Every structure is written in C-alpha cells, then in structure tokens.
C-alpha cells in the first residue's frame, strides 16, 4: 500500500483542477460555442473517470480488517486554533467516496446530450460538486467537514436554478435556505465542541467527553442539520421540490449522495461524540422514522409526477436508515449504511430511468405514459429490476439494507419495528403501481408508443447499476465486511463511554436492578456525574433483556439463542467483568462478523 501517496486529496481536488481547466480553456461568451462545449464535456468526463479510477485503487488498497482511519493525511491549516487539514476514510465513509466517484461520470454521461445551454458552466458545477462531495466524506476535521458539507450547496443551487424545471427558482431557494438553516445551528454546536476540546480534529472530538446536559443541546443542533439533509419527516418538504425541479443528473446526485451526508453525519458526529444524547433521543428518532416511512409511502402512492414519487420513496427509505442507525446494534447500523449505499445506487438509477423517458416526451406525468414494454422492452427490463431493488426483493441490494435495519429494530422495539415493516409493503404498493402504469398497462398515447428503446449511451450507464443492484443483493459481504470493523469500533466506543459510568456506579450495591428505569428517564439523572446504568434502559424502558446488558453482547446473545437463562448469565458475566468489558467486546467481534456473513 502506498502509504504517503495523498490519494484522498488527489481524488478531492482533481475535479477542481478539471473545473479550472474548463474555465481556463474559455470559449465564446454567449451563444453556442459547440467546440468549446464538447471540449468541456470531454475534460469533465475524463477528470471524473480518473477520479473513479482512483477510487477503485483506493478500494483495492483499503484494508478491510481494521477500523482505523486509512489513507490519512494531516497538515497544518489554521495553526494556533486547532484546525487542521485532516483527511482519511474508514469502512463507513469509503463507500460514500466510491459512490460519489461512481455517480459523477454517469451523471455527466446522462446529460451528454440533454444539456444544451451553458454547457461549460454545467460541467464546472458538476466537477465542483464532486470535489465537495468527496471532501465531505474524507474530512476528519470538523471545520473541514463543515466547509465541504456547506460548499455543496453552491453548485447544487446553481444546478437546480439554471438547468431546472419550471419552478426551479422556488426549489433552489427552498433547498438552499432549508439546508443552510439546519447547518448553521450545527455550526454553533461544532464551535462549542471545538472550544471545549481545543481542537477540531474529529478523532480527538470522538474521544472527548461532553457533559450530559451539553450533549442534549449539541445533539439537537446536529440533528437540525442532519435531519434536514436526510431528510427526515417533518423537515423533508424541500426534497420533493428539489428533486422534481432539478435536472436529471442533479436529482441523481441529490438522491445518490447528498441525502447520505445526513446519515453519514449521524454516524460520524452524533453517535460517537454524543452517545448519551443519542440514546436519550433515540425514541424520538424512531417515531420520526416510522412516521417518515409510512407517511412518505402513502404520499408516494398518491403522486402523478414520477419524480415526486421517487422523491417520496427516498424519504421513506431514509426512514429505514435513521431507524437502523439509532438501534445502536450491529445489524441496525450495518443495515443503515448498506441501505444508504443501496439507495444511492437504486434511486440514482431510477431517476436516470425517469430521465430517459423525460428526454423523449418532456413530461413527468405518469398518466402520459403506458405500455412501454411494447416499444421499449430493454427499458422495461431495466426498470423492473430497479423497481424490484427499490421494493427490496431478496437478491437485490434493497433487501439487505431493509432487512438488516428492520432486524436491528426488532431487537430494540417490536412495536416500532412492526410499524416500520409495513413500509416495505407500502413501498411495494407504490413501486408496483408506478411500474404497472409506466411499463405495462394500456397504451395511452401515440407519442409514448413511438418512443425508441435505450440508446447505446443509455445502455452503457444502466449496465453498472443493474450489475451493482444484483451483486450487492446476492453478495453483500463485500460491503458488510468492510463496514463491520468501523461499526464495531463505533459501538464499542459508544459503550465505553457508557461503561465508564457504569463501572463507577458499580461500586454501590444493587445498582441497575434496583433502580427503576422511570427514575432514570428524567434529564436530571443524565446530569448526575454517576449514572449507574447503561443508557439503554434509560431511553427504552421496555427494552429486551439482552439489550440492557450492553450493546457488545449482541452477537453472543444471538448465538445463545433465545433462552432467557443464557441471557441472564451473559448479563451477570458482563457485570462481573466490569473493567474488562472492552476486552469482551473485542473478543466477541469476529464472531459477530461471522454471523453477519451468514445472512
């Protein structure tokens, strides 16, 4: 492995160099300078393909057995204020980097002929967007992260506003201001944490303990930003507007990458830095997630605009992600990350698929289409595969993510999980409805019946999606293996923060069993320096026994089957081990990974 080769910076700034190159090559100011436009297209395409190539090199070099940050680069940025230029990826972020690098060339290819005006600016905007996206997922400094996270707004605002549909201005403003409003609150939280920790370095911030009272506020501030970005109900309303009005490629990036920044933020900031507040607010997140899943699915059912339907389905799918993340168990978080990756592939491809018919008929109205399987058989096949992936049919990538996050949810709360599971059915309902009307159904319009099937260019960019949907569906281990160590470390990290408190409290007799969960539920209990129990009980009074013994026991508990005795022993053992609990976690690590492979 080339250790000192700055591959992450290279991937981040290569698109920027491409953008500067396009800018420098110039061309005529107004009107169509076809030569310059074509040059710009090729420069953008070559740059983004190079970045994708680099991302593949990164994947090959990526060591799947460690949870440490890899390809780390650290340089002085703002000396004297503890802000550094720190880049690195772990098992969670590496796939988002790959996803960003994968989707950008496809977006450029998809808009090769459909963008006619201001082509150079379009290419520059997409390359800048790629720089900021990759930077967001690589940043290991909170300020650097924020810079990239916010900077994404600029190219996306311009993409929606210049090349968007009829209500593009409204949507662009809504997108920008909504996201900005959430983010600035996160900025205040970041500032508070930076001042307390004395540095903006993310690994150091993760190791810093913040007081429980402070965590609650910090969590809410982060939540404001990430929930908008996800988007979670009820702050999702910008998404349908932005999706509908954005050009196809804009929707692809929006659904494929930008929404994942919220989930990534939860995993990178909220959970490891604010574990107690995360557990405290988990019930709220569960409820919001379930509402999002059911409500957004029902809304999707009623849509006539195909892009809007997919947009609402994104809200529902992101509900599974937040649900999974806040289960705090291996399956749930793995499922959430996998769901994000899978959604990044499937929904991106679905937007492209809608873009294909939109390019031909220039309408997104579902009622204008019908019976496309007749004249566009190949398209019908592609669409049905993608639809099944979105529905979560086994053997597609959508299944793995939904299944794992639901599994994680069932371990925490049956009621929530049951409600969430109805979302799978509703998801099938609207996706099948869409497919029936679009691909099958009666012939409605002559012009729809005369549309040509996929061109070679379209075949080229759908092929990798189809392969990915099926490959991730049948062999999810490639991804799961690589994210497992990082999630394991995240969980043990969260528990170590909780265990520190438990160990302190354990000196007193009858802790845990004697304390009623209700008493612990008040925020006052959180403020107490010695909270004599795990916070699982605190956030979830009706939690199942294996949960209350601490999260790392998950794998073992599962292995032991369902006998209550076994669980009790586990629990007792865990308490007895006390300080050794971390060792126990590391020990249980490989077993759990093993378990996950079998699924």
């Amino acid at each position, binding site marked *: 492995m080339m250790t000192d080769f700055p591959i992450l910076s290279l991937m981040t700034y290569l698109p920027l160099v491409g953008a500067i190159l396009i800018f420098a090559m110039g061309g005529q100011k107004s009107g169509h300078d076809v030569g310059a436009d074509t040059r710009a297209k090729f420069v953008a395409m070559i740059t983004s393909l190079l970045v994708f190539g680099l991302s593949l090199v990164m994947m090959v070099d990526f060591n799947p057995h460690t949870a440490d940050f890899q390809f780390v680069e650290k340089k002085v*940025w703002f000396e004297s204020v503890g802000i550094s230029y720190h880049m690195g990826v772990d098992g969670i972020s590496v796939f988002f980097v790959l996803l960003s690098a994968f989707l950008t060339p496809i977006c450029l290819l998809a808009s090769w002929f459909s963008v006619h005006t201001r082509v150079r600016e379009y290419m520059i905007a997409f390359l800048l967007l790629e720089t900021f996206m990759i930077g967001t997922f690589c940043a290991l400094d909170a300020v650097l992260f924020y810079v990239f996270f916010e*900077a994404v707004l600029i190219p996306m605002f311009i993409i929606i506003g210049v090349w968007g549909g009829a209500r593009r201005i409204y949507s662009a403003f809504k997108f*920008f201001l909504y996201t900005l409003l959430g983010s600035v*609150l996160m900025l*205040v939280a970041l500032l508070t944490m930076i001042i307390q920790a004395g540095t903006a370095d993310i690994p150091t911030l993760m190791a810093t303990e913040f007081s429980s009272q402070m965590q609650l506020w910090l969590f809410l501030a982060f939540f404001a930003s990430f929930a908008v970005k996800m988007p979670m109900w009820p702050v999702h309303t910008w998404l349908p507007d932005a999706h509908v009005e954005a050009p196809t490629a804009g929707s692809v990036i929006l659904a494929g990458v930008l929404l994942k920044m919220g989930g990534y933020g939860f995993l990178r900031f909220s959970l490891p830095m604010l574990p107690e507040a995360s557990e405290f607010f988990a019930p709220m997140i569960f409820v919001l997630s379930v509402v999002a899943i059911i409500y957004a699915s029902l809304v999707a059912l009623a849509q006539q605009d195909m892009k809007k339907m997919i947009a609402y389905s994104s809200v529902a799918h992101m509900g599974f992600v937040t649900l999974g993340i806040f289960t705090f168990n291996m399956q749930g978080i793995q499922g959430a990350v996998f769901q994000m990756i899978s959604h990044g592939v499937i929904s991106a491809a679905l937007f492209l698929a809608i873009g294909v018919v939109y390019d031909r008929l220039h309408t997104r109205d579902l009622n204008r289409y019908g019976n496309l399987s007749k004249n566009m058989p190949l398209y019908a096949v592609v669409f049905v595969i993608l639809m099944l992936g979105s529905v979560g049919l086994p053997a597609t990538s959508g299944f793995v993510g939904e299944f794992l996050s639901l599994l994680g949810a069932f371990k925490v709360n049956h009621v929530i999980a049951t409600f969430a599971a109805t979302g799978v059915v509703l998801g099938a309902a609207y996706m099948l409805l869409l497919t029936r009307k679009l691909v099958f159904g009666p012939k409605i319009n002559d012009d729809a019946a005369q549309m040509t099937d996929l061109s070679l260019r379209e075949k080229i960019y759908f092929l990798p999606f189809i392969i990915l949907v099926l490959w991730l569906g049948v062999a999810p281990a490639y991804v799961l293996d690589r994210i497992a160590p990082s999630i394991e470390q995240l969980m043990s990290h969260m528990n170590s923060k909780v265990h520190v408190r438990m160990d302190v409290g354990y000196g007193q007799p009858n802790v845990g069993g004697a304390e009623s969960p209700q008493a612990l539920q008040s925020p006052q209990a959180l403020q107490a320096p010695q909270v004599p129990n795990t916070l699982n009980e605190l956030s979830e009074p009706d939690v199942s026994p294996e949960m209350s013994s601490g999260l790392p026991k998950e794998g073992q508990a599962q292995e032991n089957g369902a006998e209550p005795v076994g669980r009790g022993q586990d629990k007792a053992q865990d308490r007895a081990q006390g300080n050794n609990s971390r060792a126990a976690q590391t020990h249980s690590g490989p077993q759990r990974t093993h378990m996950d492979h079998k699924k």
Partner: protein
Amino acid sequence: MTDWNLSLISPIMPEIFLSAMALLLVMVGALKGDKSMGFVTYGVIASFVLAGGILYSVSDTRPFDTLNGMLVVNGFSNVMRGLILTGMVFSSLLSLNWLRQNNFMKFEFPLLYLFSAIGLLFMVSSNHFLALYVALELSSLSLYVLAAIKRDHLDSTEAGLKYFILGALSSGLLLFGISLIYGYTGSLNFSEVNAALVSAQMLPVGAIIGMVFILAGLVFKISAVPFHMWTPDVYQGAPTPVTAFFAIVPKIAAFALIIRLMTGPFAILNDQFIQIIIFVSVASMVVGAFAGLLQSNFKRLLAYSSIANMGFALLGLLYNVPEGVGSVILYLAIYMVMTAGVFGILMSIQRRGVALEKIEDFAGFAQYSPLLAYSLAVLLFSMSGIPPMAGFFAKFFVFQAAVGAGYFNVAVVGVLASVVAAYYYLRVIKLMIFDKPNSDMAFTPMCQFSQLIVIVASVAAVILFTFMPNQVMHQALEAAQSLFPQ
C-alpha cells in the same frame, strides 16, 4: 520636550507624509485649477501607496507614544493603519473610472479622500479623547462633503445633508460623553482615565454614562443599529465610488476606536460595555438581515448588508481576550476586501454607459459577462458566509469568540440572521445567473484596468484565504495581543 529627535515621531511618518502631500497637492490644484485633476488624482493614489510603504518600514511591534501621549502607536494601530491604507487604495482606484465616465472635473474630490484618510489614520492611534475627536472630525467633515459632491444632484445633496446633520448629532453625543468622562476622572488621556477608574472606590455612574454617549457616537460611525438610519439614504444618494469608500474605510477606523476604548480606558467597565455591545450587535444583525429583504436598490441592499456585517463583527468583542479582538480584526479585513470587490463589479454593470443600481436590472447579466457575474456571485456567497470562501471564516471566528465567551444565545441569533441575510444575496445571484434579461437593451460591461485590479485582488483574496490563512490570522492575532497587557 527638550531633547527632540526624529525617532520620536517616526511611527507617525505615514500621517506626516500624507499631510505634506495633501498640502502640496492642494497647492497644485489651487494654482492649476481643475486641469490638474489627473495629476492630483494619481498623486493621491501614489501617496497612499507610498504611505503604505513608509508604514511598513517604520512599523514596530513595540508600543510607542508620541506627541506627549496624544497618540500611541502599537501593533494594533499598525495593522489597522495598513488596513485603512489598503482600503484607501481600493476606493481611490474604484473612483478613477467613475470620474472619467462622468467627466467629473473637480480636483477637490481626490484631495478629500486624502484628508479623510489622514483623519482616519490618526484616529486608530489616538490615546487621548481630544486627539480622537479632532481626528474623527477631520475625516467626518471630508466625508460630508464627499457625500454631497454632486452638488447639482438632488439625491447627493440630500445624502450629504442627512449625513451631516446626523453626524453632527453624533459628534455632539461624543463630545458630551467626553466631557462627562473628563468631569468624573479628571483626565482625557486614555491610560490616565483607566487609572482613575481603576483606583476609584466605586465606579462613578457619570463615567458610565459618558462611556455610553461616546459609544453612541462611535456606533453612529460604524452604522450599527440604533444609529443606522442614515446609512441606506447616504449609500443610495452618494456617488457610487464614494459609497464604496464609506462602506469600507471609515467603518474600520471607527471599529478600531471602539476596540481601543474597550481595551484601554474602559477596560474596567467591561461588563457595562459588553451589555451595550450585545444589544447593538443583535439589533444590527437582525435589522440588517430583515430590512435588506425588502430592498430593490443594490446600494441600499449593501447598506443593510453592512449594518448586518457590523453586527457580526461586534460579536467578536464579546470575548474580551486577544482571540476575540483578533477575530474582529480578521472580520474587518475580509469584509473590506469583499465589499471593495462587490462595489467594483457593481460599478461595471452598465447599460449604454449608465451604471445600474436597481437589482431587477441585473437580470441576465451572466449571459453578457459571465466572468463578472460569477465573480460577484463568489463575493456574495462569501458575504453570506458560505464556505469555502473567506467570508465563512470571518463569521466562523467571530461566532467562535461569542461562543467562547459563553454567549450561545447571541451566537444562535447571529447564525439565524445570517440565514435570513443569505436570502437577499442569493436573490442577486439568482437574478444575474438564473434569469433572462428584463430589457432588450444590451449590457455594456465597463471594467477599466484600475477597477479590474480591485476586483481581481478581491476575488483572489476571498478564495485564496481558505488555502493559506495563517499569515493573515497571525497578523490579526498579534495586533490584538498588543492591546492586552502581557
């Protein structure tokens, strides 16, 4: 002073040089009349550049008091003087094109810039309330005349008159405050006032009232709420290069004075001082953000934007330590550079040789001059505090100061105001880039070399700061440290 030698006045050589140049150029103008316009204008710009060079060569980090303790020159005043001279170079470069286009031949115009600059430079070094007042009035009187320089123009004369009357009121407040301070401490020297207040058994109420009046006078100069009423009218009425000058330079000097007072004579009154700052800051941010939403004239919009910006800059003062003051200096520097660039581009957005001011008229500008339009977009994104531009870091550090001092709620109000303000910047960007021209008349972008220097410098600085911030940060912090006893 018995043994006098040159080294005693060497730190104020830039001011002395500029004064000599001012007298010389007045003579030239008086003898040769308006024909000497070109010579005087370039002479003034050259003087600013040379004064900058002199400042660089005489600047010393050690504090140095001169003219019997009237002035104290230290690291802080060196940096602020550097900023002021840079701002003067920017604003006089920006005026060149306008002078030529409007065939404006009055040699007083550049000279007023020069006189005003001398006043501003003395202001930031003053260590005595009388020096402060004299320097402030020297610059202000020049500014009043500049605002009304188009004397056959209704808007301009109205702006001049309004500025003058309100300015006179604020000077009155300032003088009243100074007299109270004198009455309660028996001195006008900053360090003696401080000593008197420190040694007082209980803080004299009169001194606190005096401080409030002095602060009111200065808050007027930085156009913060509640003394902001003049700003939109003066910005709109004054000729655009004069507005640019108003927007960048005098505010920096007045801000420097506020910082000096906070850390010098009124250090002991910090609690009371901070209360005023909190109110002024929050009110400025909120009023600047919301009132800007309704504007249709770009110069009025910039007036409200500057009101909001002053509110943001004041946030840094809540943290009365070098880091807090350093964040303010950084904010002012970045604000100055951004504003200069915005005005440079504003003056080049023209149709048939007439500069446009209504925001609606900017529609579709990107199709005629994408470079200028995107440069303005970069500057406006920077002003609204969107990373990766310098404006974000300016806001970042003042918010950090506010949070560091424990004023979370003020910081939250600030960030929310910045979101509101982002809307009006975005609106301009939207009109330029997203919309189609609202008139068949073609844009004739007009960008002279002198203007181009300012625009390129501004855009480059705003982008490059992100990549190499340390030099600037270091200067700001060092300047701030010189104000605090080690």
